[in-house]
């Protein structure tokens, strides 16, 4: 090997070494860079790892929360399931109940329909005519007897006022207005009333009716009125025949009785021995009593017929009282009774004298009849407001408390005086009540057994 070769060789090697060193340096630099990068990366990774750890921690917490939540939800779900089950059961029960109720409603409806049908059948079958109105007086229903009697059908009458359908007239032929109709009054006064009137049929004919009207209440609330009436033509005919019979019979009795009474009255004035005079006197009194009985029977007959109207004229009360008291003087003296009359001076009234006498005659005769020997009867006439008050008081047997209500009845006689020994028919007071009504007056009384009775007549002056 030449030196040149060696040099050249060594130069080559040195170059290569230089290159190698350079390369190594480059590699080292690269490695350094890479190491730096790696360090940065490691740093980043460390940060990331920390962050991740944070997130993980958070996640762990969240997971725990979620677990709790899930647990809660599970409980809630269980509870809900419970409720649902319960609801299902309840729903089933409700379904059952509804079915039962529906069944019951059906049954009840059927029952009610039957009851209603029964009620309607009863209403329709009532023998007397019936009409019901609402509280304004419009017809709600009428029954078959109504239709038959008046010739109006229910559907024609429904919704109309009663007065539009049936004309009502009184005994004198005057038409009764809607406001004066019984049904209007029953609604207005909230109580039942009765009357006898005439109704006009659809064909224009009239017939007498006896009417009863009553208001209808539901839970104390007035909802209308119901009127029941019946044709009383037959009763009227019988009444009339009876009255005519009474009149004729009474007249036939009166004619011979007058002769007897007058003859005895004339004989009383003759100068007979004591015993005969007594007989004549008793016979005369009996004939007089009989005349009074006939007069009363006739008067009742006329009263019941409605044929007696008061005949109003000025009357001096004192004169009337004196006259009436004289009728019974003989009886009074014989029974040792005292009579006291108090009458306001110049007490003038306008009334029917005959009717007033009849009332006082009855009251006084009763007072005498039912007062034991030695008793006292007082008659007192006074003014009371615009009326005249006459009290007839006795110290007699009185009327038993439990029988006092029956005093105005015809033929009623109190049990404590009804013995055959005490003459009496029980028509006197019945008549007194009726006559008092005729003169626009009223009769009342207070009575205590074995203390006495006071009858009071109150009538317009």
């Amino acid at each position, binding site marked *: 090997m030449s030196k040149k070769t060696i040099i050249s060789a060594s130069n080559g090697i040195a170059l290569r070494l230089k290159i190698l060193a350079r390369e190594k340096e480059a590699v080292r630099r690269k490695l350094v860079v890479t190491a730096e990068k790696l360090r940065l990366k490691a740093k980043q990774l460390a940060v990331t790892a920390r962050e991740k750890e944070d997130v993980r921690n958070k996640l762990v917490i969240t997971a725990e929360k979620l677990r709790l939540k899930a647990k809660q939800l599970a409980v809630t779900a269980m509870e809900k399931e419970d409720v649902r089950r319960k609801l299902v059961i309840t729903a089933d029960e409700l379904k059952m109940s509804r079915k039962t109720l529906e069944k019951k409603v059906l049954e009840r409806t059927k029952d009610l329909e039957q009851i209603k049908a029964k009620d309607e059948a009863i209403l329709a079958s009532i023998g007397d005519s019936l009409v019901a109105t609402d509280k304004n007086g419009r017809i709600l229903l009428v029954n078959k007897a109504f239709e038959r009697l008046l010739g109006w059908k229910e559907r024609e009458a429904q919704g109309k006022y009663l007065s539009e359908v049936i004309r009502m007239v009184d005994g004198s032929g005057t038409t009764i207005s809607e406001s004066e109709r019984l049904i209007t009054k029953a609604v207005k006064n909230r109580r039942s009333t009765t009357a006898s009137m005439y109704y006009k049929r659809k064909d224009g004919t009239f017939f007498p009716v006896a009417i009863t009207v009553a208001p209808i209440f539901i839970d104390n609330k007035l909802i209308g009125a119901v009127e029941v009436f019946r044709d009383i033509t037959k009763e009227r005919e019988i009444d009339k025949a009876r009255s005519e019979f009474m*009149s004729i019979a009474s*007249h036939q009795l*009166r*004619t011979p*009785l*007058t*002769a007897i*009474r*007058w*003859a005895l*009255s*004339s004989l009383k*004035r003759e100068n007979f021995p004591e015993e005969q005079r007594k007989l004549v006197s008793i016979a*005369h009194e009996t004939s*007089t009593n009989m*005349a*009074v009985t*006939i*007069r009363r029977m*006739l*008067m009742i007959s*006329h009263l019941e017929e409605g*044929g*007696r*109207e008061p005949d109003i004229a000025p009357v001096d009360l004192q004169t009337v009282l004196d006259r009436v008291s004289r009728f019974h003087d003989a009886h009074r003296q014989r029974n040792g009774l005292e009579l006291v009359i108090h009458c306001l001076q110049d007490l003038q009234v306008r009334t029917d004298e005959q009717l007033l006498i009849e009332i006082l005659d009855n009251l006084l005769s009763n007072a005498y009849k039912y007062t034991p020997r030695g008793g006292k009867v007082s008659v007192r006439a006074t003014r009371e407001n615009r009326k005249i008050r006459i009290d007839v008081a006795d110290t007699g047997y009185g009327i038993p408390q439990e029988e006092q209500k029956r005093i105005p009845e015809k033929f009623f006689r109190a049990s404590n005086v009804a013995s055959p020994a005490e003459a009496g028919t029980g028509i006197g007071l019945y008549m007194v009540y009726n006559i008092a009504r005729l003169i626009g007056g009223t009769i009342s009384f207070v009575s205590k057994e074995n203390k006495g009775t006071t009858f009071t007549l109150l009538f317009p002056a």
Partner: protein
Amino acid sequence: MSKHVLIAEDDTLLAEMMGKILSKNNVRVTIAYDGQEAVEEMEKKVPDLLLLDILLPVLDGFGVMKTMKEKNLACDVIVLSNLSDKVTQTKCREMQVKNYFVKNDMDDDALWPAIEKYLR
């Protein structure tokens, strides 16, 4: 001069008793036992007062009063009847009767006081 009363009454006993009472009181009395007879008596001589029954044979009390009006026989009339119904009484009042008595409701001695004032 004494007053003259005509009694129209078909019951003889009553008619006589009435006559007796009036005679006692110085009244001249004529008795007619039916309505026709009463009219005839009045045609002879109109009395001062006629006591008239309503239910009379031949011609009743209303017939008598009607005839009196037709024949212009003017005289006060008092009815003495045993009818006491309102219709009869009203009808009598319409025919200008002075008074109306029910015989059965009075005694014989009540007759004179009842009619006396119509004879003054």
